[in-house]
């Protein structure tokens, strides 16, 4: 039944699906790992139990999210070979060693110290335990660095040659790693991960403030999250702008599609706020535009000429509508985050940070904003690279495995079913963990013996039905 489908299209859908699911977890765990390290450091420094309570609360959530990130990540490391074997053969000599370094410097570090971080506090003591937490956080950042070097090289390849077998071969590793878009992409993504986590933490804190449960812990996490939003959101907007200018320089077609510029504008290009991209007629229907603003943003000159997609052969256009919209979603959410950050700063100044219900409601609403923005951003940059896998060098159509469409279709369906089941359940458990208070027992469940850290004070867990005996062991 799938013979009519094109194996390349199915493989693209499969990659997009599995990588979109995957990126959600690192986007959260990069930020959360750093947050955990900060919480534990504050606990060691100030000896204030509230930080350890929050640490334990978020540690359990981190464990679930990290587990999902690990298993969805293993799929990625093999999918290059199963579905994109020609790409792997050709690009392996360049991107493979970078991923090899990711495994050697980051994955083992995270995995090795994760066990100690989750289960080892009483075996190794607080200082070594903090070292383990720090190593996990550091590992997530190293991992981000290598994989973004890989992705950036695919966007703006540099430092390579070709051999007689048609493989890309590294000539200058420094240029391969520090390729033109890498620094921008790395900063933009790490800040995105921090913002994503800040808005999740902020939403959980705000929700508990609205419920008026455990005010001290909720206040602490809400306040920390809002500081992050206030400080990081404006930096992220500046970083995003710099990244956009870098893209204009190295991947102009992507920017043309983001802007909806089908035609060149020799005397200053308008900024199209909204409209319906119409690729058959090569125009944006119902466009609401501000004259010359695009030239001002991209060239810092109202009358600077800007080339459009008419300067690029039709078969090398990226799909315009997808990128046009995903870009607007990302930017819109970025400014909404800035708005929350400024609003919280105002409330903080007025002394109403803990009592402003409307701010708290808005923060709850914005809880998933980071994930949506991260996905929209990645869709923009990845779809914007089409029709290439390695920009300007290797076409997507020439990257695919010699594999039949039914095989790709069958595995795609299997991935869709399994991912929705497994990660749906995981998301449900995470939401339930968030709803619970740091110290409260969970409804309908018994704390696993490995989970209830002995450091948790108070008799609350002991009262939990069915596990009173064990829980007594958990509490001091």
């Amino acid at each position, binding site marked *: 039944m799938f013979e009519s489908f094109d194996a390349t299209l199915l493989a693209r859908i499969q990659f997009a699906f599995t990588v979109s699911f995957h990126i959600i977890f690192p986007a959260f765990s990069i930020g959360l790992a750093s947050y955990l390290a900060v919480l534990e450091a504050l606990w060691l420094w100030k000896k204030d139990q509230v930080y350890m309570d929050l640490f334990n609360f978020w540690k359990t959530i981190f464990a679930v999210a990290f587990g999902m990130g690990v298993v969805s990540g293993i799929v990625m490391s093999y999918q290059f*070979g199963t579905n994109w074997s020609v790409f*792997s053969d050709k690009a392996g*000599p360049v991107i493979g060693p970078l991923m090899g370094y990711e495994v050697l410097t980051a*994955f083992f570090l*995270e995995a090795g110290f994760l066990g100690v971080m*989750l289960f080892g506090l009483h075996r190794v003591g607080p200082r070594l335990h903090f070292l383990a937490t720090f190593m996990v956080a550091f590992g997530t950042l190293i991992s981000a660095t290598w994989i973004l070097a890989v992705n950036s090289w695919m966007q703006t390849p540099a430092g390579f040659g070709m051999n007689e077998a048609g*493989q890309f071969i590294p000539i200058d590793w420094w240029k391969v790693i520090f390729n033109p878009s890498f620094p921008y992409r790395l900063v933009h993504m790490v800040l995105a991960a921090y913002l994503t986590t800040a808005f999740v933490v902020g939403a959980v804190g705000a929700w508990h403030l609205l419920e008026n449960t455990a005010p001290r812990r909720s206040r602490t996490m809400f306040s920390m999250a809002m500081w992050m939003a206030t400080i990081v959101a404006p930096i992220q907007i500046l970083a995003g702008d710099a990244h956009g200018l870098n893209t204009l320089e190295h991947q102009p077609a992507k920017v043309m599609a983001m802007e909806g510029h089908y035609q060149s504008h020799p005397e200053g290009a308008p900024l199209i706020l909204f409209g319906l991209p119409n690729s058959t007629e090569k125009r944006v229907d119902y466009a609401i535009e501000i004259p010359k603003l695009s030239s001002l943003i991209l060239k810092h000159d109202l009358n600077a000429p800007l080339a459009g997609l008419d300067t690029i052969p039709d078969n090398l256009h990226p799909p315009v509508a997808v990128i046009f919209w995903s870009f607007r979603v990302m930017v819109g959410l970025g400014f909404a985050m800035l708005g929350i950050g400024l609003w919280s700063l105002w409330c903080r100044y007025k002394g109403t940070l803990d009592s402003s219900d409307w701010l708290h409601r808005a923060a709850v609403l914005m809880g998933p904003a980071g994930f949506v923005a991260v996905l929209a951003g990645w869709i923009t940059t990845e779809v914007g690279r089409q029709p290439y896998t390695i920009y300007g060098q290797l076409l997507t159509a020439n990257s695919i495995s010699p594999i039949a469409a039914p095989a790709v279709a069958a*595995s795609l369906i299997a*991935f869709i079913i399994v991912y929705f089941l497994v990660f749906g359940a995981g998301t449900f458990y995470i939401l339930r963990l968030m709803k619970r208070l740091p110290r409260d027992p969970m409804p309908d469940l018994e704390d696993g013996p490995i989970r209830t850290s002995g450091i948790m004070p108070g008799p609350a867990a002991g009262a939990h039905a069915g596990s009173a005996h064990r829980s007594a062991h958990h509490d001091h």
Partner: protein
Amino acid sequence: MTIDLPFIWAAIIAFAVLAYVILDGFDLGIGILFPFFPEKRDRDVMMNSVAPVWDGNETWLVLGGGGLLAVFPLAYSIILPALYAPIIAMLLGLIFRGVAFEYRWRTKRGEFLWNWAFAGGSALAAFSQGIALGALVQGIPVVNRAYAGNWWDWLTPFSIATGFAILIGYALLGSTWLIMKTTGALAEKARTIALRTCFATIAAMGIVSLWTPFLKPQYLERWFGWPTAIFSVIVPVLVLGCFALLVTGIRGKRDTQPFLAALGLFVLGYAGIGISFYPFMVPPSVTIWDAAAPDSSLSFLLVGALVLVPIILIYTVYAYWVFRGKVDPEEGYH
């Protein structure tokens, strides 16, 4: 260039895959044995005995795959499409059993689901790995730097046999791990299972070993031609030695000896495959040197590997050391 970089890298990749097989082997084995331990209390202890280390164990699989892409991209791009279905099945199995480590503690009502996910996922992953191994041993047709077979070629009686062999072997690793890490009735039951699976494992190894030389003339020559036939004497003798240590260790109620002897069996079986394969990366046509990436790739990553792999081994040993000794069924890991 006097240093044979592809050869060194073949050795490193072989080491990473071996590390994966024995390390994830025992924790997949725990999952495979889950159905034989219906008590929740036993299952909690079994899972806790590997919970702090499974993630690190699985990272060797990522190193094996990622390393292959980096240093033998041609082998990577031939093997994965050739073994498409078993690889996808393995990945799905690993997803189910991997998340079960966390999810199982997050729900009471749904716990049985994640018990099944853990057991089924582990068994599926192990079986798929065995099938992949068998399919690789029986050879992969290559034309023009690409897999040239059909997408069901991996499915043969031989690959099914290796699938079961790995399943049984992992169950042996898991049961001897439990002997080492648990106490009381649980350890006693693990002993009974270990005794049965060790006989089954030796039988499976025997069948696969006798079958292999008749798949390809190359293997027959390797095992029965001079001077390599010398391995045909040494390897089986060592295997029988490990087998004896295994049986006496289980019967003599020793804690660690059975696990180490089971590891020995795996190392020998792995060495046997290595002897059959050499110098091929993808039998019967792609050698280590055909598949290797250019030296600039190999040397760049080798510098890191030589420094980092020993460091990784050190902190991996440390992580195991932190959680050394028997798992206390009352306290778990606090």
